[in-house]
């Protein structure tokens, strides 16, 4: 077990949250979620579709840039991944800027599809590797998409969990609050409390995030590594040693 890399633990943990779904989509710049979706697909016995933006092989769209969003609006995408330069305790995400948006201290690419997908995809998994008070904040400087909505706002989708390089949080929509679900091996609840800028619930017992079993590791290092290398060759080489020569 101890030979599982931290990325492999994340991949297996995310894949566990995708089990039983029909269609998982993965956006740009998301190698770990992409690998997790491909792992879940491997385990589904052919029942799950995975659409990975940027992939030729794992891309089922033929109607242009709008199709991902249309597909989500039709209710045909069960899970998606979003990140944020900042994420706050109400699961608001900020992909735009720090400080005054008109003269920002930092400017990021932009909100991409988050202002829509966060509302309509039932299971949005937030993914932010850097877990510090700088990234997990009390209140984001710009709401690219809100974590919760008023009762009269159409919102079949929303945040399901937040995974970082230190731990996994669940999100409770009714209470608009995160709960610490598990701590990754080598990390502690105290460390997480120090490194998290927002308040969250801590159950009496917080388990360690499970490490993948041998069978899962074999899937990750075999077909998943090979498939993710098509889309993220640098990532596949760094994490799995799947190089250009492979």
């Amino acid at each position, binding site marked *: 077990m101890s030979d599982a890399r931290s990325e492999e633990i994340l991949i297996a943990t995310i894949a566990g949250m995708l089990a039983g779904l029909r269609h998982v989509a993965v956006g740009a710049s998301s190698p770990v979620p992409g690998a997790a979706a491909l792992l879940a697909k491997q385990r589904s016995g052919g029942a799950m579709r995975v659409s990975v933006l940027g992939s030729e092989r794992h891309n089922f769209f033929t109607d242009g840039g709008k199709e991902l969003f249309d597909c989500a609006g039709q209710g045909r995408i069960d899970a998606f991944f979003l990140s944020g330069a900042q994420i706050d305790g109400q699961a608001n995400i900020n992909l*735009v800027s720090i400080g005054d948006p008109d003269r920002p201290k930092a400017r990021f690419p932009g909100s991409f599809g988050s202002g829509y997908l966060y509302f309509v995809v039932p299971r949005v998994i937030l993914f932010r590797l850097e877990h510090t008070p700088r990234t997990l904040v009390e209140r984001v400087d710009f709401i690219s998409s809100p974590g919760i909505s008023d009762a009269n706002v159409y919102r079949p989708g929303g945040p399901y969990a937040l995974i970082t390089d230190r731990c996994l949080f669940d999100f409770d929509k009714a209470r608009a609050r995160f709960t610490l679900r598990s701590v990754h091996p080598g990390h502690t609840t105290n460390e997480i409390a120090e490194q998290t800028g927002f308040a969250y619930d801590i159950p009496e017992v917080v388990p360690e995030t499970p490490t993948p079993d041998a069978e899962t590791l074999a899937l990750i290092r075999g077909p998943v590594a090979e498939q993710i290398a098509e889309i993220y060759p640098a990532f596949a080489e760094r994490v799995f040693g799947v190089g250009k020569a492979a």
Partner: protein
Amino acid sequence: MTDILSSIDPLAAKVTDGVVITLPPDYSGCANALWRAVIRRGVKDLHLVGVPVFGYHGDLLIGAGCVATVETSAVTMGEHGLAPRFTAAVKAGSIRVLDATCPAIHAGLQAAERGAPFSVMRGLIGSDILDRRADWRIIDNPFAEGDPIVAIPAITPDLAVFHAPKADRQGNVWIGVRRECMVMAHAARDTLVTVEEIVDDDLMADPSTKAGTIPGLYVSAVAEAKQGAWPQGLYTRYGNDNDHLARYAEMARTEEGFAAYLSEVVSGREAAE
């Protein structure tokens, strides 16, 4: 009828100060040879609309001082990081940014495509994107009680501009599955296209090519530009020149570096283009 031009300069001449232009995403054919010619012309005050995002090509135009407004869901160089000139311009307050979310851009273009004044869309309510878009509205869904929904006005650009693998002599342009280019052409007043090659075949004659073809009806002018997307890639033809893009990302981090890049790659290539 479509003008079939023998070089990109008369095409670049159609890009005039202050026009609203839709740009495709990086993977759908960026007309970089044309943009270099536009920069050499010294065009000003462009309003760029990312469909729904853009990268290098828009960053280059921003850095060269051609752009007043950017309306987009994101500007990114992908694996090469943040778009440096966009980031610098936003921090300096030298361009106006209208942040959007991808399907809002598509909704606005589809409204224009349909000749409708707006489209409605779910999402957005409670976001600062919506809060900062004075040109968008929340209306009541007339088919339900107490159901607010966002109305996005039609985006009707002056120009759609992109690069594609091929066109025929009737101005039909093959784009394969890059359908956002078709929506862009439908929505725009005029569409300017550079292509790798102008072919003698009629792209509308074979049902296979026809299915991925924008009719010349929507295409104002076409010019051939070999490797016209370089240093970006072109679907079905060639990949990104990643070494070049990495070098751009590095050089464009400073104004001096960007000026050197322009001098080398934009001014310096004039004779060759």
